């Protein structure tokens, strides 16, 4: 079919040229965007993980600290990080982990001994003896104690015991979290170590500025 320079064809050719020009002009931008998206993906994931730390500041829930640490652990895919970016990404991750561990250190009470008798809660408490000589079995419902003073004494003991439970549970959860975060730091360093070594002074400096304990810093330094 012969080609006519009618309006439609002129428009088609013009449109094709515009597309070609836009295509040519956009290619570097597209390549840059793709490169940037690969390069910045880890940083974006790290930033996303660190939102958990922000949530923790208001919630004070260890679950938020745990989510932050796990998010950092899963924020990267090592083979997709450009070799030139590996050191920077590792520094970002250690900065994040350092902030989490700093919070763990702040919450820790090194003087607390969960095995000492004064810190040991009871599963069941024994109610005091009532003035009548009657004494209910352990774990009794306070409402079953007829004497008000004895009941109040029993409830006070239960409240005190519940505080011990709370404190012990917090301690245990914190210890478990501590172990997990340290494990996640170790795995992160190991994954990066297969690709790039060195940078120890900078990483140690990051940990020093994070304000974590010297003992913990030494442990992490040994992993680097």
């Amino acid at each position: 079919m012969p080609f006519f320079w009618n309006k439609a064809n002129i428009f088609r050719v013009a449109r094709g040229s515009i597309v070609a020009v836009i295509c040519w002009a956009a290619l570097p931008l597209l390549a840059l965007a793709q490169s940037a998206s690969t390069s910045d993906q880890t940083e974006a994931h790290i930033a996303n993980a660190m939102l958990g730390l922000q949530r923790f500041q208001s919630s004070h829930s260890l679950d938020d600290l745990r989510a932050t640490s796990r998010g950092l652990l899963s924020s990267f895919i090592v083979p997709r990080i450009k070799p030139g970016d590996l050191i920077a990404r590792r520094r970002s991750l250690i900065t994040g982990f350092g902030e989490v561990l700093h919070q763990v250190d702040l919450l820790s009470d090194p003087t607390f001994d969960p095995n000492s008798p004064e810190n040991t809660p009871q599963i069941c408490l024994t109610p005091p003896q009532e003035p009548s000589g009657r004494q209910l079995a352990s774990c009794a419902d306070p409402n079953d104690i007829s004497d008000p003073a004895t009941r109040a004494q029993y409830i006070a003991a239960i409240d005190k015991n519940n505080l011990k439970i709370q404190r012990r549970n917090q301690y245990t959860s914190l210890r478990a979290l501590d172990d997990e975060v340290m494990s996640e730091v170790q795995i992160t360093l190991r994954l990066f170590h297969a690709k790039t070594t060195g940078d120890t002074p900078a990483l140690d400096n990051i940990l020093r500025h994070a304000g974590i304990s010297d003992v913990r810093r030494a442990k992490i330094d040994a992993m680097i």
Partner: protein
Amino acid sequence: MERRRRLSVRPRFIFIAALVGSLAACTANPHSTAHVPATGPGSVSTLSEVAQVVAVGGDSADELAANINAGVAAGKSVRYVTVKAATGTDNYSVYAQIAHSKSAVLVHVYGRTHVYRRSTTKVFYSADPSHELDIASLPLINVPTIDKALSTNASIGASSTVRLSLCAHCDYVVGYLYQSGPVKAQFVASLKDPWQINPDYSFWKSGSDVKLASSSTRSAQFLGDCSYGDYNCGGGDYCPFGTYIDGNCYYGIYSPGIGGSGPSCGINSQTAATFPTNVTRTTIGVGEAVNLASSAGSTWSVNSGGSLNTTSGSAVTFTAGDLAGGSTVTVSGSGCASASITFSIITPTLLIQRANSGIEHKVGSADIGIQQQYFFQPETVSFVNLFFEEEEVIGSATGYYACNGATQTHMPGAPLAALADVPGHGYPVGTDAAYSGSCFGNQFLDGSLTFNIPMDYALTSTGVSHRMNITANTFTSTVAGALNASKGASTGSTTVNSPTSSF
């Protein structure tokens, strides 16, 4: 006014559509994914890679080189295996089977095995240094003869002249006798496209040059039969690490699962809990967290019985569910064959022990109390931070103890988290006082007070609780003044007239 508004909108729409369309046209690839294997090495992982990455195979080194060149010339991002040895670099099909031993990196390809000294060897996908494989994540095989030869610099396998013709940078070439020619006819695959020929992974299928050792005690252990074809164990060029089993000569003892579609993504597993000290164990407690890492894989899934914090990343955290069972986590990646790890998840059992020998008792009263400690067991997994609670229950009383009610309420406190393991006992979950109570009046009466207490565990203090058992807690008194108490296996006794004592 209305007309002007419509006219002003239209050109903008056309421009945006043209921009979107042209960008799509720029990025679209007419070959699409047709040349990319759906799974295994070389399969794609990101949308940007879809149209560009191809896995390159070949039935000989020359053919592979030609295919790589053809792929590059066609504008593809080629994916193949590069082994960098001390003396130079060799390229392999993505389906080459690569394993490591104590001292060697072994590449099984073209029907023979190329051996490199592990300490001076690096393995990559393509020539890109960012695609280095963690050799430790490759399948581990047991080849003591090769390891010994590498440590003593003994000469094994193909003579040096033949070795150099087969593999320019290998330390040894061992295995099935093929010189430099193509693989056996039955293994030559049909062409798929100019740069991708179905590789030689079929060498590891049973029947011809591979068979299961009859004396093997390990499952799926493949041994190559050196007596096949035109060489023998004693004098053959390639058979120095063979061994005689049942009168047959074999080469190579490979670990289960090595056959297939190339190097495994590999999974390194590490429990979050540092006790038990074996942090790579795959038997774990309910609720236990395990960190999983893969240097090559990045897409994770779990079948059941637990959860992952995410499905993408070089590392993820697996958390066991709250019930006993099995759970398999799988990782896949763009440059490796998927790998899995299966966890066996166990629930706790409860150990109840007397905490001390003391008895709570007032002289002249039919009361008795004992104190016990509870532990989660077994100690082979971690139950730290798992919660324990007794459930509220109504007990029944008779005789003497009915003075406080024929039915009595047992109302324990809040759930308790388990502490660190006490060796020989388990994970302490709490201390308990079991006390009968007492009444005024005649103390020498028959009587009993019994609570059947549900004992539960839960992953969190407010989470769903699961029953471990129902433990009987019983107190009895007799007209003779004998008093007994028991809670599970913890028991104690005294008499009404015994002196006052406490726990």
